[in-house]
């Protein structure tokens, strides 16, 4: 039997799927509705300093007819009072004792104010606290949100203020708008955080109107950067999650988010070390009901693979992450086009010819033009593979037997320093690797 239960830094839930702190978690009404259809937990829409929102807060990027591949917002934290939010947290927790309710908090950088809100949150019965150090607009101008997340010292300081009074687990939610995500992560650890949530939204401008020259979306003629979320940011989030997971100085449970839309996305994050996963944009697009397939799909996958608990797979892909210097330079792959599957769109041809290594020929075969790889010239870059619209038509065929291996880090130790292009070419030549 598959058991999806998790324990993330001491916060437990029947499955790893949590709603991220955002409009879907604005109220007790919404969260109860979400729990009814199966969500394992919810991070309450950030509670704290008084705010006032603007209209047209959301913008989106559509791609090739696909709606919302990315969502941008300039929404602030909850515009409802702290009292109402805490009251509804208490009510909801009573109704749903087995679900995780995490209160996201953001107040002015004042130790007393923080102590006060933390205590009230604990009194309301929340299972945990998430510190919003990520909001990249509006709050940051007031010295909160990403203004904290971008300065490790502030990060540590405020985390300490919270952890020194908190009796429930504290997660620190990081902003991706930094050059190295590990620094704020280490700062949170230093402030005694129990876990890390990431990522919050990414600074973006959605677009410019070609008729009015206004920024999209415009609020009374003005627009500006907002925070980006949704499918487009998943690869960025995966990388940042893996960096936090791999950093020996941090070593904290992770609640991951950023572009998760389905069970497959969720599993990828778990394989890179996440314990719980949070979702915002996908539910804003389709509603709470998507969790049903997330649970179902994950369960089926685990059953098929023979896993019974998420603990068995958590972080299992991390070992396969390597720095460039540790990758085998002598591994040889060559593109192969299956003529039987080829539909003759010639996209591989034009991509290779114009932008790669000119090693695909259009060969006349039985009245059809067949793109064909000139193997001696293929460098194995994989561009043709990714442009091909047919599944399994182009494959990257391994041509070496794996016996030979030399990494860059090993090679530079062997070759005379400073490295010369001649020595490098000699090494390549010896191994039959030509440069085109």
């Amino acid at each position, binding site marked *: 039997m598959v058991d999806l239960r998790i324990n993330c830094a001491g916060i437990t839930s029947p499955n790893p799927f949590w709603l991220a702190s955002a409009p879907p978690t604005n109220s007790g009404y919404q969260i109860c509705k979400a729990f009814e259809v199966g969500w394992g937990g919810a991070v309450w829409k950030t509670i704290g300093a008084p705010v006032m929102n603007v209209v047209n807060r959301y913008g989106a990027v559509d791609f*090739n007819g*696909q709606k919302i591949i990315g969502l941008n917002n300039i929404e602030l934290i909850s515009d409802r009072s702290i009292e109402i939010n805490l009251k509804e947290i208490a009510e909801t927790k009573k109704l749903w004792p087995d679900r995780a309710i995490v209160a996201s908090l953001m107040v002015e950088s004042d130790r007393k104010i923080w102590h006060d809100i933390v205590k009230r949150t604990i009194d309301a019965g929340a299972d945990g606290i998430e510190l919003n150090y990520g909001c990249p607009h509006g709050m940051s101008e007031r010295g909160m949100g990403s203004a904290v997340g971008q300065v490790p010292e502030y990060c540590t300081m405020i985390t300490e203020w919270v952890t020194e009074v908190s009796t429930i687990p504290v997660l620190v939610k990081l902003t991706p708008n930094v050059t190295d995500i590990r620094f704020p992560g280490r700062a949170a650890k230093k402030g005694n955080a129990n876990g890390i949530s990431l990522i919050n939204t990414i600074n973006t401008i959605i677009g410019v109107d070609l008729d009015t020259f206004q920024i999209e979306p415009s609020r009374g003629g003005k627009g500006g950067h907002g925070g980006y979320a949704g499918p487009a940011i998943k690869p960025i989030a995966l990388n940042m999650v893996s960096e936090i997971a791999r950093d020996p100085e941090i070593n904290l449970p992770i609640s991951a988010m950023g572009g998760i839309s389905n069970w497959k996305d969720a599993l990828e994050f778990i394989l890179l070390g996440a314990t719980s996963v949070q979702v915002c944009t996908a539910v804003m697009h389709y509603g709470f009901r998507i969790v049903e397939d997330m649970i179902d799909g994950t369960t089926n996958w685990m059953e098929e693979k023979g896993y019974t608990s998420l603990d068995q797979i958590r972080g299992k892909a991390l070992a396969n992450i390597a720095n460039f210097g540790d990758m085998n330079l002598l591994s040889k792959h060559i593109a192969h086009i299956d003529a039987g599957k080829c539909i*003759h*769109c*010639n*996209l591989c041809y*034009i991509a290779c010819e114009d932008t790669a290594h000119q090693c695909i020929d259009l060969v006349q075969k039985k009245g059809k033009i067949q793109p064909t790889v000139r193997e001696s010239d293929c460098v194995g870059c994989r561009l043709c593979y990714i442009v091909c*619209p*047919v599944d399994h038509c182009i494959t990257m065929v391994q041509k070496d037997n794996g016996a030979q291996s030399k990494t860059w880090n090993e090679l530079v130790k062997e070759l005379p320093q400073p490295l010369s292009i001649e020595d490098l070419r000699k090494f390549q030549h010896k191994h039959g690797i030509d440069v085109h």
Partner: protein
Amino acid sequence: MNNVAPKLTSKEYEANFAELKPALTDVAALAEANRCLYCYDSPCMTACPTHIDISTFIKKISTGNLRGSAKTILSSNWVALTCAKACPVDELCEGACVYHAKGEKPIQIGKLQRHVMDWYVEKRMPQLFTPAEMNGKTVGIIGAGPAGLACAAELTLFGFEVTIYEASKLAGGLDTHGIAPYKMQQQDSLNEVKMIKRLGVKIKTGVRVGKDISFEKLEKTHDAVFIGVGLSMPADLKISGEEMIGVVNALDFVENVTKRKWKSVDVGRRVAVIGAGNTAIDAATEAKRLGAEEVFMVYRRGREQMSAYDFEFELAKRDGITFYFHAQPKKIVGKKKVQALECLETRIVNGKLKTIPRSEFKIPVDMVIKAVGQNIDETFLASIPKLKIKDGMVVVNTKSYQTSNPKYFAGGDCINGGKEVVNAAYDGKRAAYGIHNFIFKKK
């Protein structure tokens, strides 16, 4: 006619002749355009007789550049609106779409092209091409069908002064007079004529060359002449009774229907259509849609030998047309007015079609539509000196479209025996290059 079918209400006519392939909405067009793979050197482009750069025009739809898309289309095909609506796309571009090989539905290229051309017409056809400065030479064109129109339009881009002589009152050839109203509207063709006129082409309608103006005059006035007269002579059945009231030529019948004045077109209660090409199918379905109670298609060979496209045959079946295969019309029976069509059964013996003796049977009908093909007007063309005609087609050089009389070029149905609009459009355009090279002695 013995029994004229009762007239329908205007609403019924409108419903019966409503478009079979309605336009895509903007959203649907965008979604479909985005589905296009943007193939390089795409098979659809090769399959199109005018070689429209289809993946490029579709890409432009997806970027919202409809003006550029219209230009991409028109630069290959001057009657692109007609083609978008009337081309047998299953047999051409869409039939070649790589999605077939992927096991998916092909891109709706015809509908996407129509989306662009509808936009273009809606925007009142802004000028996308600039005719070259006058080069001092003039070309006369006989016939304002798609071949003549395409040739004329292209010639203006070389700087020729162009005059088209058109026998009919309305230009457009069969695009205006022949194509079924549930495929396109006469106005679509007339819009294309308008667009081509705006390039500076003069069209003299109601002028029949050989009657209203002589070949000598034409030769004197122009440095070259393009023949785009199509096939104007309906083939006869050569059976008795053809002169009776109720016997009509498919082309005349169809022409009346394209005018969209349906009430004024009489159709019998029971109609026999003789022939099995696309024109025969059009005539049969149009007769049915006008209110005929029963329509019979009579063909002397079998289904496999029918020259009509599959989708045309399917349409006829859906319209409830009854097919008599292996039936050879013997005579039309009646007293001044048609009463029945008498046929003989046929069979194929050693690959040859044979009638079966004493197998006569009668189909009682009020109307007979002859749709056994059209021929070129050989007597008319014979008055052009040294013009070679073979198998009922004007002979041209396949590259230059020059006829055996160097001053004359030809294209369209009169050189291919009757194909599609798209072939005529391509011929006309290529012939313009041939004429330009001939007059300016280029190779």
